[in-house]
């Protein structure tokens, strides 16, 4: 059967996963200023991430999906995208935070157990990006939630996203 052949071929060829990027130096510096190392023992080098689209154009979502795929394989680092904020340590927010999403974003954050961190992913999440100044958006995540790390880019490339998240892992877990 074709499926069996494909599975065998994939096994023999070995993983398509690429070598990990180093933890991002800028992100490490950002985090060093805001975070204590106390939580390391509790979290055991593993972070659960809840992705939250707060009004992105969906470009960032595409790159989050790419990072979860076999080529970047987020889970090998102990980083996992989870379905419920109750299970999450990190809120990964994309988009400029539309006013229509603000309440849902706050509720998602409040549903997370402490200790918790907020990562603003993409130029919109940083400061509203090209949507800044609109009646319908807040200008970035920091207007609504305490942001621990900004990963800029439009959208941030998978390596950039990975190295930012790895910096978070280095610092907190």
């Amino acid at each position: 059967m074709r499926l069996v052949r494909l599975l065998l071929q994939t096994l023999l060829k070995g993983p398509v996963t690429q070598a990990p990027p180093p933890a991002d130096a800028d992100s490490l510096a950002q985090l060093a200023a805001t975070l204590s190392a106390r939580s390391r023992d509790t979290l055991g080098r593993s972070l659960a991430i809840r992705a939250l689209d707060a009004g992105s154009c969906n470009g960032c979502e595409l790159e989050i999906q790419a990072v979860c795929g076999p080529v970047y394989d987020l889970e090998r680092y102990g980083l996992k995208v989870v379905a419920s904020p109750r299970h999450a340590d990190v809120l990964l927010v994309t988009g400029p935070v539309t006013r229509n999403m603000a309440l849902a974003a706050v509720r998602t954050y409040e549903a997370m157990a402490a200790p918790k961190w907020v990562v603003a992913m993409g130029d919109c999440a940083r400061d509203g990006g090209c949507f800044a100044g609109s009646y319908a958006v807040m200008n970035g995540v920091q207007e609504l939630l305490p942001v621990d790390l900004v990963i800029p880019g439009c959208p941030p490339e998978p390596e950039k996203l990975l190295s930012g998240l790895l910096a978070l892992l280095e610092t907190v877990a």
Partner: protein
Amino acid sequence: MLGNTTLTEFLDGLRTVPQHQPWPRHLLDERAWMDLLHQLAESDWTLLGLWADGGEVHAALRDEEDGAVAVASLSCPERKYPSLSEVRPGAIRLERALRDLWGITPVGLSDPRPWLDHGRWPVSRPLALPRGPAPETPVDYPFLPVEGEALHIIPVGPVHAGVIEPGHFRFTCSGESVVRLEARLGYTHKGVEELMAGKPLAEAAKLAARLSGDSTVAYSLAFARAVEAATASEAPPRAHWLRALMAELERIANHLLDVGGVCNDAAFPVMLAHCTTLREEVLRANAACFGHRLLMDRILPGGVSHDLTREGGATLRKLCATLAQRLNILVDIYDDLPSLQDRTVGTGIVRPALARRFGAGGVVGRASMQGGDARKAVAYPPYDELDFAVPTQPLGDVNARIWQRIEELRESLSLVNQLMDGMPGGPLTRPIPTRGGEGMALVEGFRGEILLWLRLSEAGKVVRCHPRDPSWFQWPLLEAAIENNIVADFPLCNKSFNCSYSGVDL
């Protein structure tokens, strides 16, 4: 009026707006607008878009018999106009959005509820002059009533369990079966139309590229073509070909992810893993050839920003060969797995008549026998010189939408090869003259036909821009498709549609 009048005949003799390109725009008085409504009830002209602009309402229509496109405009000084929703149900959400943003009332629209306005902005009627005051409380949104014994309601969202965009779905179920689904969207409304007004072309183009990130090429192309139409200019031939190349690469990348995603939602993640790996190769080729994985901001009014080098061409040819071969393996596996097809065949059926009633195009429409494709219907360059088919499927279920994507993938791979073979030389851009005018573009994105209309000032700035995503006419069909399916099949149906949230929330 007779039943078989053509759109051109109907609008003939009405006052025409100068400088509206490439299709005519006619000014209707209220009587002519009412005639239009009666005529729409008789004819099968497709509603392509409906939007407001200052004190006017515009409806873009296409006569499917001869392909004629025209815009009908009605001035509404009393800020109301006779609604199109009775004769074209696809207009319902467009009219609700228009009422929220402009404070213009569609008379006869049966749904009084707001759509984009959730009562959380510091203004109301944000595009009207003057704007309205901020609401005192958020909108209390009544969902459609459902009566019956033993029904239960499942509210889902706006925050979903996966990495997807936000929207609220309200399921009313009898046991496992969905009796009614009602979607409430608008959560990602960013006020793009207001942001675009008054912007120079370069800034407005950036916003257009971010209406829906997965369709960034298609929106940039639509914006560029509308600007070029408005200013009576034309991109150089090589730019046309490079634009089409990028558009096909975007279609390939998205269709791959969707085929994998639908199978994943039917609990077959192997397909997603392989499709994601293939997609990654496309994105890397994009980055290598044009400097951006999603090809954002590569298409600009007047041309394109990046040329394709000889090495880039070789990369793309190799990519196409690999994709064609590996796609065949994946297709055989899908075709060979009854347990997977058990989930997709007969699930989430969209009847062709309903797709037609809503004027739905794209993958969703074509999987239900609707043959429209702007690349053929408008035949903008270079598609007029390329050889490709527009496949359709008769059954309109999840399986049909998977096959539709597979067949479109094959056509797109062939198109990429044709584009490489016939790519002309020459410059990449031509300057856009600074002048006013109105332009409209119809462009086929991976979801379907995008309409973008704009007016430029004499200084060459955007006065008003309205983008209409194909999902406007596809979202309502999802509510029909899920009826009598089990709740657990909703993710499957939703993924097989893959409508844009950001694109319709604006």
